């Protein structure tokens, strides 16, 4: 169904992206992390509805074999489901999507010392698929291609030397004949880059540094040679628009957190914006060059990574259908940009924000409140949101049916102070002291919200007691599915937020659910397995989270039983 003025852009685009494979073209599977190459995570299936969701039952369960944080989004290609476990990944499973019977398993040996070089848990968010190949990224900095039918390793290429403090936790992006990936390491002073590999050979085709070297455009935004360990890691997923032929990635915080290393110790930072950190980049996938950039947090001092996924949609702005991207930034502002030009359309707070009064429309810069910027040996207190952000990696979703964006938000604040930092290879490079365990206004720690991205208003919100709630799945059946850290998997009415059904999976859910259809039947799937490391940053709140559900690791698949 097409609502006047709104185009369901990515149902069409996904098909165009995958012209070479009938399987991935199907609107009934889940061919890519974000559901489509625009990361909308909209489930086009409507068998499971607000009327019958109460009857939803477990069809099968797959044990993932690890107990670290499970953050994987499964892919469904044809009749096969591909899912990863945490810890490396320790396992990549290919299973029959109808029964969970294992077809093959890929279990690489990952060096034990990757623990030191991963900031926030031994997670893996899933694989990518193209032309009969599964692409796996690993904590030890490798990208691997597997035969999708057999699991046989076809090639293995090093993306980055993990021992410097780098790790790959997110699936790569398949674009034309390339597979593109960034890596994590903004807490270890890596110099970020995004690189593209040939899908057939594994040869590196291009590499784009997100932090320019001396003399390159943008290098004037860095103090001295601070760019060398400048961060800007693109650790989350990319989006791709095949019509514009543009690839989009967000970049992390600059390193170290203590800004004084990279510029003046003040909100009057002038040109010291530290490009291209905490930014959205539009990249020409053929050349690997930046076409436009938009920096959401110039001269970041709060660890407000700009990595959150870019959700692509075509919406009416000022009477004109416009290709836009949505980003619920860590810094608390919801950005709508023209994705062709990078022009700012709107930037409004979608959570409680008190470090800036707004975003200046002309410069695109946040209007800072100077007391909320941590400086060297000076605490800034009660900054909202805290460094987990208004939203973190837990994926949001856009429904063209309701025209709303569903966002798993945080409601936490922090105290932060800058300290003297010295770079040491493979060690955290923060120069910072912090207290993140401050609950935001209202006393709840997260909230599922339905956000109107054009009017910039919250249409409804469901408060959750504890943080790290799960990613969102709106469906054509008028539902939104999501999990929470206590392990409950819920179905809500997409237009009101009313709880219609819930199921206890026994361990916390942070990953995003998916839906697929096989032999005429709709399934909904989600991975359960509580986060371990990020809650530990929260002291007594972390103790509550640990008490709320045990660690785990299982994929749950649901169906409507025959009446």
């Amino acid at each position, binding site marked *: 169904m097409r609502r006047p003025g709104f185009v369901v852009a990515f149902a069409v685009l996904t098909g165009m992206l995958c012209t070479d494979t009938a399987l991935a073209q199907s609107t009934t599977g889940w061919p890519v992390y974000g559901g489509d190459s625009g990361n909308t995570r909209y489930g086009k299936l409507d068998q499971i509805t607000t009327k019958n969701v109460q009857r939803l039952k477990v069809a099968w369960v797959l044990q993932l074999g690890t107990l670290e944080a499970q953050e994987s989004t499964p892919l469904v290609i044809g009749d096969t489901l591909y899912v990863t476990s945490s810890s490396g990944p320790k396992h990549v499973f290919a299973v029959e999507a109808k029964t969970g019977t294992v077809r093959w398993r890929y279990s690489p040996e990952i060096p*034990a*010392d990757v*623990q*030191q070089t991963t*900031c926030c848990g031994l997670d893996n968010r899933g694989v990518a698929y193209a032309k009969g190949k599964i692409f796996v990224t690993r904590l030890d900095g490798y990208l691997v291609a597997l035969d999708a039918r057999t699991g046989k390793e076809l090639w293995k290429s090093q993306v980055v030397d993990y021992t410097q403090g780098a790790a790959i936790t997110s699936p790569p992006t398949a674009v034309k004949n390339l597979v593109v990936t960034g890596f994590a390491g903004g*807490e270890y002073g890596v110099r970020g880059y995004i690189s593209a590999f040939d899908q057939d050979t594994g040869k590196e085709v291009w590499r784009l540094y997100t932090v320019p070297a001396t003399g390159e455009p943008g290098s004037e935004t860095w103090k001295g040679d601070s760019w060398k360990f400048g961060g800007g890691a693109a650790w989350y997923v990319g989006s791709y628009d095949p019509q514009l032929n543009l690839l989009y990635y967000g970049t992390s915080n600059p390193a170290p957190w203590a800004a004084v290393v990279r510029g003046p110790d003040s909100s009057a930072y002038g040109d010291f914006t530290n490009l291209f950190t905490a930014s959205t980049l539009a990249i020409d996938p053929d050349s690997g060059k930046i076409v436009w950039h938009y920096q959401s947090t110039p001269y970041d001092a709060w660890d407000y990574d700009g990595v959150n996924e870019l959700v692509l949609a075509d919406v009416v702005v000022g009477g004109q259908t416009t290709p836009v991207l949505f980003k619920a930034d860590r810094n608390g502002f919801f950005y709508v940009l023209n994705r062709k030009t990078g022009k700012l359309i709107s930037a409004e707070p979608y959570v409680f924000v008190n470090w800036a009064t707004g975003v200046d429309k002309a410069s695109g810069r946040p209007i800072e409140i100077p007391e909320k910027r941590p400086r060297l040996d000076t605490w800034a207190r009660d900054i909202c949101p805290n460094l987990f952000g208004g939203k973190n990696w837990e994926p949001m979703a856009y429904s063209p049916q309701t025209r709303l964006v569903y966002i798993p938000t945080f409601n936490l604040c922090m105290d932060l102070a800058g*300290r003297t930092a010295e770079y*040491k290879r*493979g*060690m*955290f490079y*923060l*120069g*910072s*002291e*912090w*207290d*993140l*365990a401050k609950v935001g206004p209202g006393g709840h720690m997260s909230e599922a919200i339905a956000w109107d991205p054009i009017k910039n208003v919250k249409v409804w919100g469901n408060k959750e007691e504890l943080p790290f709630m799960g990613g969102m799945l709106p469906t054509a059946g008028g539902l939104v599915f999501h999990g929470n850290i206590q392990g409950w998997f819920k179905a809500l009415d997409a237009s009101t937020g009313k709880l219609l059904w819930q199921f206890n999976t026994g361990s916390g859910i942070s990953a995003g659910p998916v839906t697929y259809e096989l032999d005429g039947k709709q399934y909904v799937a989600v991975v359960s397995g509580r986060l*371990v490391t990020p*809650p*530990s*940053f*929260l*002291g*007594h709140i*972390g*103790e509550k*989270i*640990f*008490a709320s559900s045990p660690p785990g690791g299982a994929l749950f698949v649901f169906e409507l039983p025959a009446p």
Partner: protein
Amino acid sequence: MTGWLLARGASETAPPATNPFHADASVVPVGRSLFNQHCSHCHAPNAINPDPSRDLRRLKLRYRENMAHVFYETVTEGRPTKGMVPWKGVLSEDAIWKIFTFLESVQREP
């Protein structure tokens, strides 16, 4: 000295490590700040870590009179394959013992 100490890399012949700041309460805030700068992203701010294997408030429960020794060996040498980094050459002896003095102040009683 028992098997677990050897297994964790402490040498039986080394003189037992002792804290030069023992019971000096004035060092606790300094140690706390150092801990929060260097250790808190793995061991949690103020050492309040819900994950037992990383909860440094349990050192006394675990190691009793050998606590200082295990602490010193673990911090200087690390346990690299377990995710604990070596701090020799990064933090001074002085800083390491100040951190220990802070940790002594938050130990759970047996």
